């Protein structure tokens, strides 16, 4: 609406971007990650902190430049026409390309790859194995018993109260299997491998303080592995929408010393 009046100006609008940049970077810097309680979790937090540092710096820089331009060029002074050659524009484009390729691929290939090895690599022979099965809306936990072997299951035999996992009586390996609801007992400082299955829909096994999250898919066995570094009881939740009780699909992971874990296991009756 500037045919006759002078066009509207508002160089102070640039302040918005200074505030924006500083507020974002400043609040992130307060630290929001809960204390990590697993070995590989430190690696995950390291990747997150690396990304916070690098992208935070770039975001702040971008906001400052944006705010500065709005304040400087928002006053309405005539500017000499900026003739930038096509070649110069192309060269300028190389700058963000190199910076972003470096930051992002260093993140994935340098920072994250060692953690990838811990999370997905071959577990050591002495790893502790436990099975967690998701169903609406609880976690069923199975321990292999003294034989160290998970017995056969058959979903035809599943019954909510009598046989929640459908253990097969004719399989000797199933006879000593221990089944409990919602409580995953694991050792401290030894790798735990959790075998994950689901009976009905997709669930997701997540223990936030361990930085662990893995979907449980019906018809498929997934696994996740981690090493607890501290004894204690840690909350287990479902991260994948699984129905109306999704929010209350609560469980707990009890990390304890080898002796107390063994005592607890010895005190359990086999399900069958």
């Amino acid at each position, binding site marked *: *609406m*500037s*045919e006759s009046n002078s066009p*509207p100006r508002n160089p102070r*609008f640039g302040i*918005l*971007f200074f505030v*924006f940049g500083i507020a*974002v970077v400043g609040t992130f810097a307060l630290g*929001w*990650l*809960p204390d990590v309680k697993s070995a590989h979790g430190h690696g*995950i937090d390291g*990747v997150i902190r690396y990304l916070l540092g690098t992208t935070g710096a770039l*975001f702040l820089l*971008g*906001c400052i*430049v*944006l705010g500065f*331009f*709005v304040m400087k060029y928002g006053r*309405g*002074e*005539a*500017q000499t026409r*900026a003739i930038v050659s096509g070649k110069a*524009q192309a060269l*300028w*484009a190389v700058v*963000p*390309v190199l*910076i972003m390729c470096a*930051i*992002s*691929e260093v993140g*994935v290939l340098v*920072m*994250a790859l060692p*953690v990838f090895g811990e999370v997905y690599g071959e577990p050591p022979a002495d790893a502790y194995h436990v099975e967690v099965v998701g169903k609406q809306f609880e976690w069923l936990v199975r321990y292999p018993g003294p034989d160290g072997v998970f017995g056969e299951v058959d*979903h035809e035999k*599943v019954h909510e109260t009598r046989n929640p996992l459908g253990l097969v009586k004719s399989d000797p390996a199933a006879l000593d299997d221990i089944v409990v609801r919602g409580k995953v007992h694991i050792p401290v400082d030894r790798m735990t491998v959790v075998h994950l299955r689901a*009976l*009905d*829909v*997709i669930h*997701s096994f*997540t223990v*936030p303080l361990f*930085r662990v*999250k893995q*979907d449980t898919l*019906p*018809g498929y066995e997934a696994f996740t592995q981690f090493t607890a570094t501290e004894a204690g009881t840690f909350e287990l*939740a479902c*991260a*994948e929408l699984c*129905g*109306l009780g*999704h*929010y209350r699909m609560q469980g707990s992971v009890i990390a304890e010393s080898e002796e107390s874990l063994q005592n607890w296991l010895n005190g359990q009756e086999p399900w069958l």
Partner: protein
Amino acid sequence: MAVEEHSAPTSFVQKYIFSQDHKVIGLQYIFTALFMAIVGGGLAVMIRTQITWPEKAMVTPEAYLSLVTMHGTIMVFFVVSLALVSGFGNFLIPLMIGARDMAYPLLNMLSYWTIVPACLLVLVSFVVEGGAAAAGWTAYPPLSALPEAVPGSGLGQTLWLLAMALFIVSFTMGGLNYIVTILNCRAKGMSLMRMPLTIWTYFMSSILGVLSFPPLTAAAIMLLLDRHGGTSFFLPDGLVFNNEVLAHEGGTPLLFQHLFWFLGHPEVYVLVLPGIGITFDLIATFARRPVFGYKTSVYALVVVGFLSMIVWGHHMYVTGMNPYVGEYFSVATVLITAPFAVLGMNLVASLWRSRIRMEVPMYWALGTVAVIGLGGFGGLFLATSISDIYFHDSFFVVGHFHLMIGVVTVLSIFAGLYHWFPKMFGRVMNARLGKLHFWLTYVPMVTLFFLMHLQGMSGLLRRYYDHSIYEFQKPGQELALAITLLTYTAFAAQGIFFWNFFRSMFSGEKVGENPWNATTVEWTTPSPAGHGNWPGALPVIDRHPYDYDPAAAEDKDYNPQGVVA
């Protein structure tokens, strides 16, 4: 190729209801989207209310899941896509390339009238038995396949799938029309590398849409068959409900996720690219200087489009997909930040040595630039598969995708409405109210979605009816009240917009053909533009789209891209 001839409408029905005029169809889409936005926004308000005061149990858990599902579905497909892609796309493409209409006006009309029943199906699904679909906007089976799994997976989910199928049909008709129109109907002299960036983004967006939607059509049909035809595309053996094993066997739920995200990820760019294109054009117009790096921006858009087609698996890092495949998706996904950073840098650099006019659309355009930055960088945390283990399905994801496909798109829809309102109605919207609307929308919206990143960082999980039973979710939940109050503010502020919009339509200040002294050719025809867009001959394009000069006198600092004989 010329536009398929159609004569000027003679009756009210021809002109405003079953219109073949791209401008009317564009406005029909925009009005439909604005209506659906009130519904979708209302759902957001209800979601926030429930999770902020879970002890009041405003809705049941199953109704809450319907709210979440339908909010996402409506906002993605029936608000942002309809307003930004279909609405502005239809309105702007012929006008900005100097064409009389879209290449296929009849197809265009059919496209709109296919989306109307889709909207009705979505709305009706709230009142059917079992309620609206409740398996999330992503509709993962088995949850979405089996009424045993959640009540919304009864008739509600069937209606959802039918609505999606109609949406895809409509979008495909529209997308093909855009591609043909842009390739074949440009005015004399409008070479591809003279097209405004808005048109480039619609071009890329249509190509992505047309390539990526067919797999979702397949997925929707297969899911319908699993639900009603007894097939097992997505359903494995041994699914147990109520102590009974279902008869399904041999399928895999992961297949659906691949098909869904093969569309789902490009869809993000289908939505967000036009927003970026509009932002470029508005920044050039109100900064009064040519876009910095036009060519590099075009190439960046093409690279973004290509990469967006081959990175869908980054939504599936923790699903049980082979982690080495995930690692590929991670390496490829983070590369997108490179062309995106070029776009971001070019947007900011377009202000260098400029002479900024702070008209209302410029508030929105500048605001968008910072959000593109914040949303873009946030994506890296999720694209890196290892950090995604922690963030997946947390509020960090919710905050991130809302910034990109919620805030960037909505801000550019508003920017576009304030900017092209004169071309739509021959009048201008009230500037004072426009700025008030900006502040009361921008600050709350950006703040609340930013706070969701912090919630996610502290461990808060999404799609929870009640977070309060978990110790680890308490720190994140402390921000919930602030976020909810900001949501209310942003929602209520839209009252200002609606009042301004409808009032200005009838009593806004009348303006001439080019109120902003802009260069692109839609400003060389009367406001509003009539049937056939230009009363006489079409403009002839003789220069690039952004011939502004901040060194010249204020009223002579631009040369229109096209000349009308």
